[in-house]
């Protein structure tokens, strides 16, 4: 298995506040890593650093054996990214938006139609191709965000809360899509929804207050805890302490 992402002693501070504190991990092709953690734990900041949107205060990130700080453009070509909230250019139509992304991603014109068709089909966007993005429902917006991330068939997918705002059927579809792509890519998703980790992830990493607390498979995560507990219980124990304490 080839290592696609290597994160070494990654730290990010905003003034006195340490958002990400000394996180290290590596990710192979075929793995789906779930970032779990309470709001403000540092999940989004970590993803922003891997995609090159923020630069780390300390530590290094290697993507496909290249340092993100040294070769930002080459690395960005290998990554498909859905930022938090899936921001889009509201005045564009879905089709024009996808064409723009394909254009900037330098997809050759001979493959352009197929690439767009695939991205559209996988996320079921056929009916809204000519609609302006700002007129779409939250679910559709999210799916357009996902389709722009997979249009160039990247080695690495980084998805910040990809199923937020989707209805149960759409969630199911997106999870199915992630599973389909899992064998050929390295995928990182962040989520609050623990069943999602169970459904799609091969590894779960719990982050709280910028620190990595645990890095195991979802099954192992359950193993160490009392019988009958769910991932929810494990999550609460690890991030707060005793689950019984909160109320």
């Amino acid at each position, binding site marked *: 298995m080839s290592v696609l992402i290597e994160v070494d002693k990654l730290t990010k501070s905003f003034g006195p506040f340490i958002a990400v504190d000394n996180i290290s991990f590596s990710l192979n092709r075929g793995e789906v890593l779930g970032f779990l953690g309470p709001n403000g734990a540092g999940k989004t900041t970590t993803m922003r650093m891997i995609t*090159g*949107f*923020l630069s780390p205060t300390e530590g290094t990130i290697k993507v496909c054996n290249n340092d993100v700080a040294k070769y930002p*453009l080459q690395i960005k070509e290998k990554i498909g990214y859905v*930022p938090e909230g899936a921001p889009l250019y509201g*005045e*564009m139509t879905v089709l024009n938006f996808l064409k*723009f992304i394909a254009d900037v991603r*330098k997809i050759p014109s001979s493959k352009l139609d197929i690439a767009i068709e695939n991205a559209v089909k996988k996320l079921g966007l056929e009916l809204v191709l000519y609609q302006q993005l700002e007129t779409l429902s939250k679910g559709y917006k999210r799916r357009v965000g996902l389709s722009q991330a997979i249009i160039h068939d990247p080695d690495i997918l980084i998805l910040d809360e990809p199923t937020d705002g989707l209805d149960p059927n759409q969630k199911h579809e997106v999870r199915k899509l992630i599973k389909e792509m899992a064998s050929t890519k390295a995928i990182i998703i962040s989520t609050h929804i623990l069943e999602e980790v169970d459904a799609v992830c091969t590894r779960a990493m719990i982050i709280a207050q910028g620190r990595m607390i645990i890095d195991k498979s979802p099954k192992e995560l359950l193993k160490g805890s009392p019988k009958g507990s769910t991932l929810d219980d494990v999550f609460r124990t690890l991030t707060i302490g005793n689950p019984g304490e909160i109320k």
Partner: protein
Amino acid sequence: MNTILSITKREINGYFATPVAYVFIVIFLIMSGLFTFYMGGFYERGQADLTSFFDWHPWLYLFLIPAISMRLWAEERRNGTIELLMTLPISTSQAVLGKFLAAWIFTAISLILTFPMWITVNYLGDPDNGTIVASYLGSLLMAGGYLAIGSCISSLTKNQVIAFVVTIAVCFLFTVSGMPIVLNFFSGWTPQALLDTIASFSFISNFTDLTQGVIDIRNIIYFLSLILGALTLNVISINSKKGI
């Protein structure tokens, strides 16, 4: 290069997909007409030239250009689309240039649409068309200067109103730096050489030179280096936000 053009294309389409483009062009044309005929005294002057048209351009741009430039980066920051843009394989300078070019081309389109003025003056008399061409060129270069300053300021904030107001203030200083309002402040306690330098930064004096019909390379270099300088600061400002 292709990447820059992709961004430029997207931006220009964006102007025309919203009412922004049409509102701007219509207001620009109406205002430039009003200024030329009423305040500039186009007929009263009794001369077949476009001096009364071009003389008002610095003041027209002072308020209209910041309205275009304010959204260039502030809107991306507010909507979060800057995260999408800057995680595509695009360098910061490509993004800055692409957006600036789009705004500049858009201004050029508005400027070209003032051509009835040119036709009118040719119908009424026998103007020096060489001078008019030089004036159009000067006007476009000056618009580029205003836009570059505006783009740079827009990258410092996510609030478009702040970008608009600050851009007007900074552009005002550049516009009038050759006038007594600025020079009187410095004269008396600064050496003449510095005074001349400040005066030479004036948009109006550099633009007026070009509207005289003399294409002086110094005026062109002035505007181009101003654009380059402002856009370089623009790139630095965007890159520095990565580190915070």
